[in-house]
């Protein structure tokens, strides 16, 4: 069991990424019972939005200085894409059979991938993303890159801000009410259409933060980066209990850590040496999902939905 602290750190970093993206799936599902399969692509457009912002800044701008602007640019693009998707793709289908918006989501996901691939110069082979200067930092036996530090700071900040928003603000209470009983929320005077837009926008903003973290960590953004990341984040949301924002973050962290540990240690189990390593990481992630769903179908923090009569 060498390097266990390092593997745990890797897992938590990966998990923060999954968790940040998962919040978008879970918020939208919690309010409109829609799995927004285009959310992975909303994450991807945030990465390109941040890259574009960096490219139009004067050359030589220090990255620590550019970072807040890149975040802003990424969030802006993701939010615009998500709000437009809600308005023009999903809202017209509200009240339609559940399969219709689901298929729309898959179509939208492919369309966004293709648009970026065709029209963003050089996107097809992946565009390199600027790297934060400094590091690596050594904390005990753990080595962290600047991008890891960014995620370790950004994920708790985002989570805290979201918890405060949902728990303490008037709009947040309106959001909880809409999630529990949309018709009755309307009777209270809550504009549920507006709440739905806010849920899409918030989820997109967190996805964009994750996309910046992704670019910094892996050094590039590509039109297809949202596919597997989105699928993993969706897995995290289900694992944590879909509809529950804390569950999304918890599910992300559990998934990230499980993946990191499986990658590092499964090959050390006698007779399983060929099932370890990075190429099996995705397999173990989904095995974990299946096991949790067998034992606890509502997810780690999910509630049985019996009260939704």
């Amino acid at each position: 069991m060498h390097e266990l602290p390092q593997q745990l750190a890797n897992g938590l970093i990966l998990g923060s990424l999954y968790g940040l993206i998962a919040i978008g799936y879970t918020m939208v599902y919690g309010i409109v019972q829609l799995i927004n399969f285009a959310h992975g692509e909303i994450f991807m457009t945030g990465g390109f939005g941040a890259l574009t912002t960096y490219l139009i800044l004067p050359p030589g701008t220090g990255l620590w200085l550019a970072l807040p602007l890149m975040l802003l640019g990424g969030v802006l693009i993701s939010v615009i894409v998500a709000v437009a998707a809600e308005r023009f793709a999903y809202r017209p289908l509200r009240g339609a059979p559940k399969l219709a918006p689901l298929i729309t989501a898959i179509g939208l996901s492919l369309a966004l991938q293709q648009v970026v691939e065709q029209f963003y110069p050089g996107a097809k082979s992946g565009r390199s993303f600027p790297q934060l200067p400094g590091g690596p930092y050594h904390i005990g036996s753990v080595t962290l890159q600047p991008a890891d530090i960014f995620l370790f700071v950004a994920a708790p900040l985002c989570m805290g801000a979201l918890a405060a928003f949902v728990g303490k603000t008037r709009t947040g209470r309106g959001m909880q009410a809409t999630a529990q009983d949309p018709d009755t929320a309307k009777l209270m005077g809550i504009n549920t259409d507006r709440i739905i837009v806010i849920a899409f926008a918030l989820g997109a903003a967190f996805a964009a933060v994750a996309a910046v973290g992704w670019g910094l960590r892996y050094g590039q953004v590509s039109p297809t980066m949202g596919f597997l990341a989105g699928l993993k984040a969706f897995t995290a949301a289900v694992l944590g209990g879909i509809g529950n924002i804390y569950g999304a973050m918890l599910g992300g962290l559990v998934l990230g850590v499980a993946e990191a540990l499986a990658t590092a240690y499964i090959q050390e189990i006698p007779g399983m040496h060929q099932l370890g390593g990075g190429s099996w990481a995705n397999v173990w992630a989904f095995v974990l999902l299946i096991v949790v769903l067998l034992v606890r179908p509502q997810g780690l923090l999910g509630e049985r939905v019996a009260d939704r009569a």
Partner: protein
Amino acid sequence: MTALLEVEDLRVSYGKIEAVKGISFSVKQGEVTTLIGTNGAGKTTTLRTLSGLLKPTQGKITFDGQALSTVPAHKIVSLGLAHSPEGRHIFPRMSIEENLLLGAFLRKDSAGITEDVERAYALFPILGERRKQAAGTLSGGEQQMLAMGRALMSRPKLLMLDEPSMGLSPLMMQKIMATIVELKASGTTILLVEQNAQAALSLSDRGYVMETGRIVLTGTGADLLHDESVRKAYLGED
């Protein structure tokens, strides 16, 4: 006394099925008006249309001088029309107090809201004792009290109560009916929908009997209570 609510030739459909087939009725300021009728008569559909959750296919709704049928549901409560829905529909994972505060969602006067929360607790002391408890853990009767208290939090000109006695013990039902009398005495105008015709008519100024989407009979509460066909159909007498 003038009519606070005037409904003319209202029709409402679910797809091809027409649930309300051209009804007209009015609710006068300060009175308790009741719609009675069996399951499926269209009473709940009528209330849901008044509060904007359903759109009428035809007809005119005038509330406090304003046409309602094109106003979106979330704006209705701000006009002074509050709806305590059938099946109570409290927010189960929120506390009693949070539920009451949601009833005042559009109000900005925090002093007045605090005062009204206390008034709801005075009206239903059991709610005050459990203010931090999740509403989903309350008994049916307590949930009904909460739904009524929540509807009152908007200080409505007209309070619509849909089946407040449904599924309650006789004792709890008496308590709810007594509360309606109390609310009326304090000047609240009420539109009540009930299957319990006896209890509802005996406290109503005016009643309308609905059958399969139509109003078939109307009169004062006392008239209907003594009407032979009503007694046969709704009060279980031969």
